[in-house]
């Protein structure tokens, strides 16, 4: 129990239950009945404490856009230890996700990454193509990568923006490397490295995450994966995509490093992923396309039930993304209008 939560025994009890659930399913197993009971209790507790969520009780999942307009937290601002913010480069106002305590975030991030990204190695050399946490204190990705440095790294280099140092680091690599970064950083690297190709040592892996956010040209996922494989001399199975967002505390990964052939995103045992009908929000069956809803038990201090804009299909419990809706930009209207209105 942290000093920040000392006067909140209800919260502490829930936090302990969530932590226990995460640890219990760290091996990749699931107990959906137990998870649903926990999520139900969590949602009820949050509906009483998070005012905008309480107003949406009938709707039952908070759309991510709400984070751009109102504070979504069950605690007052003076208890914030971090506030994650969305990038804001494609949609004007930035969403904010305040956190009162980072212990559940850390537990979820470490458990998922151990299972999916570092299942076969305790620690390894890491190269991060992202801002350092101290340079981007409101970036949940930078924070997570900073924690990876502590948990999984031997030597760690940070490159942002991507420049000529990347080639030098890769040329001198004599041990397996974990190369982690945003999709647009990998695109910038493609443009930086010219015709040079590398042959990273066996055991190397790549993690890429996120969209292009208007910071680089956009490339189809398969094309980017092929380009990365060819550039760095790694098998495509060693390239893992990560799915996360500012509004969540947990991340989802592809499991290709564990020998899973498909490219759907594994849903950890403390998270529920369902797809919903765009008009009725009714839950759809596996194999039907709809908008993705994520119930993240690690989202203790905000709202666990999050409605995304992502179109997806769930197959065998894993998420297949079909693309992201363009936010509030209607057909025929430009991004400039949305930005003009703020």
């Amino acid at each position: 129990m942290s000093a920040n939560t000392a006067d909140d025994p209800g919260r502490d009890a829930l936090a302990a239950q969530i932590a226990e659930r995460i640890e219990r399913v760290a091996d990749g197993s699931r107990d959906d009945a137990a998870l649903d009971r926990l999520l139900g209790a969590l949602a009820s507790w949050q509906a009483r404490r998070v005012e905008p969520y309480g107003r949406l009780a009938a709707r039952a999942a908070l759309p991510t856009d709400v984070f751009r307009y109102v504070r979504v937290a069950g605690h007052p601002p003076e208890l914030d230890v971090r506030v994650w913010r969305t990038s804001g480069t494609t949609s004007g106002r930035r969403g904010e996700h305040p956190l009162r305590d980072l212990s559940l975030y850390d537990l979820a991030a470490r458990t998922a990454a151990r299972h999916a990204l570092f299942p076969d190695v305790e620690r390894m050399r890491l190269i991060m193509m992202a801002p350092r946490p101290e340079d981007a204190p409101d970036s949940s990705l930078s924070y997570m990568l900073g924690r990876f440095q502590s948990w999984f790294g031997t030597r760690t280099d940070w490159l942002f923006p991507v420049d000529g140092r990347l080639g030098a680091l890769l040329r001198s690599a004599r041990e397996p490397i974990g190369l982690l970064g945003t999709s647009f950083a990998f695109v910038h690297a493609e443009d930086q490295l010219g015709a040079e190709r590398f042959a990273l040592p066996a055991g190397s892996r790549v993690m890429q995450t996120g969209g292009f956010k208007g910071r680089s040209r956009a490339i189809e996922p398969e094309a980017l994966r092929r380009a990365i494989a060819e550039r760095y001399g790694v098998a495509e199975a060693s390239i893992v995509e990560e799915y996360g967002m500012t509004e969540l505390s947990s991340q989802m990964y592809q499991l290709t490093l564990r020998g899973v052939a498909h490219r759907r995103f594994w849903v950890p045992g403390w998270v529920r992923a369902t797809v919903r009908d765009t008009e009725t929000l009714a839950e759809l069956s596996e194999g039907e396309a709809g908008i993705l809803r994520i119930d993240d038990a690690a989202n203790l201090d905000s709202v666990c039930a999050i409605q995304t804009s992502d179109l997806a299909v769930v197959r065998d419990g894993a998420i297949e993304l079909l693309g992201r809706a363009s936010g509030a930009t209607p057909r025929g209207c430009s991004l400039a209008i949305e930005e003009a209105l703020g």
Partner: protein
Amino acid sequence: MSVETAEGALREALDRVEAAGEGLRSRDRASIADVVAEAWERIADPELSCGRAARERIPVSSGLSLPMVAWALSVTFEDVRAELASLAARMEPPEGTREAPARLSALVLAGNVFTACVAPLCAGLLAKVPLVVKASTKDDVMPRLFVDALREVDAALADACLVVAIPGGTSNLEATLFARADAVSAYGTDETLRSIRDRLSASTSFVMHGHGLGLGYVSPDAELEGAAEAFALDVAAYDQRGCMSPHAIGVHKGADAHRFARHLAAALSALQTTMPRGPLPPEVGAAQVQWRGVAEARGLLIEGSCCAVSYEGDVPPRLTPGWRNVMVFETDRFAERAAAYGAHLKTVGVAGEPDRVARALPTPLSPRVCPAGRMQRPRLGALADGLPPWQGFRRLLSVET
């Protein structure tokens, strides 16, 4: 004449259209107006083959319901003959000038509202300019129907109008077209317009119509229920996908915005019976969930039959995903709220006195200001982005004696 063609065939087609300009320029403008009116009346008439074709094909290509398409055809062309005659009269060159129409004009259409092509087609032909219409590949039905109807009425005039669909990735065909046109009138996103502008010569006349949206205003003395019914029509028309569609309606603080919002939701729900909304695309549905969630989280959300109205107090207007989602906000500074839209504000609908609202709008805003209920029914001669509809199609040659 309509053609999908490789570059050589396109050049030949452009030659023919341009050659038809000589006959067009020698015609009396009033007679052109008569012929064009006749063509549109054929499309509006459900008893004629053009009219039947319109009602069969436009719902499929546009995604609008048949009743919506039928309504749009009816209101757009109810006074077309008189409006064209009036427009023709206004276009006569002033004393001391002679008109110099473009030899060939390219008209680049967006695909969001199927009647958006009507005004520029009319203005171009009345300006005596041969037209090449580059229609949206997603929806080229209306311009093609027009040329077909025109051919039934007057084959020589139809020869002066060519519809082409140039698929994406065939930039050489677009280059051929733009190189030949000495006037280009284009509708589309900022990105589309920039792309076109960058490919035109410095001497080509270029008139841009960027995407935009509408705003409504309820004055303090407006009758709320009647205002709600009028604005409901403005919102529902074309499923709120047009550049004139209102996304937000400001209610003066002297009026009961909450009550207006409820009336508006009821009126929109009622319209679902007579003019049902088309099927919701998944990406719009996803955006709708987000928009409605914000409304519910910080204000009041009134969901009706295939529609929703939000009431969020005195806050800046928030862009909606369209498709019959509209925001009501309170305000005592409507002009300031309107100014935030800038050049994207195309139409202001007013329940009250349009003139008073127009005078309060800050320069250089130049939307069309009209009564509520008419936001999506501009007259044929209405200004577009503050410019006359024939802007760019011709110049005037001054004769000094």
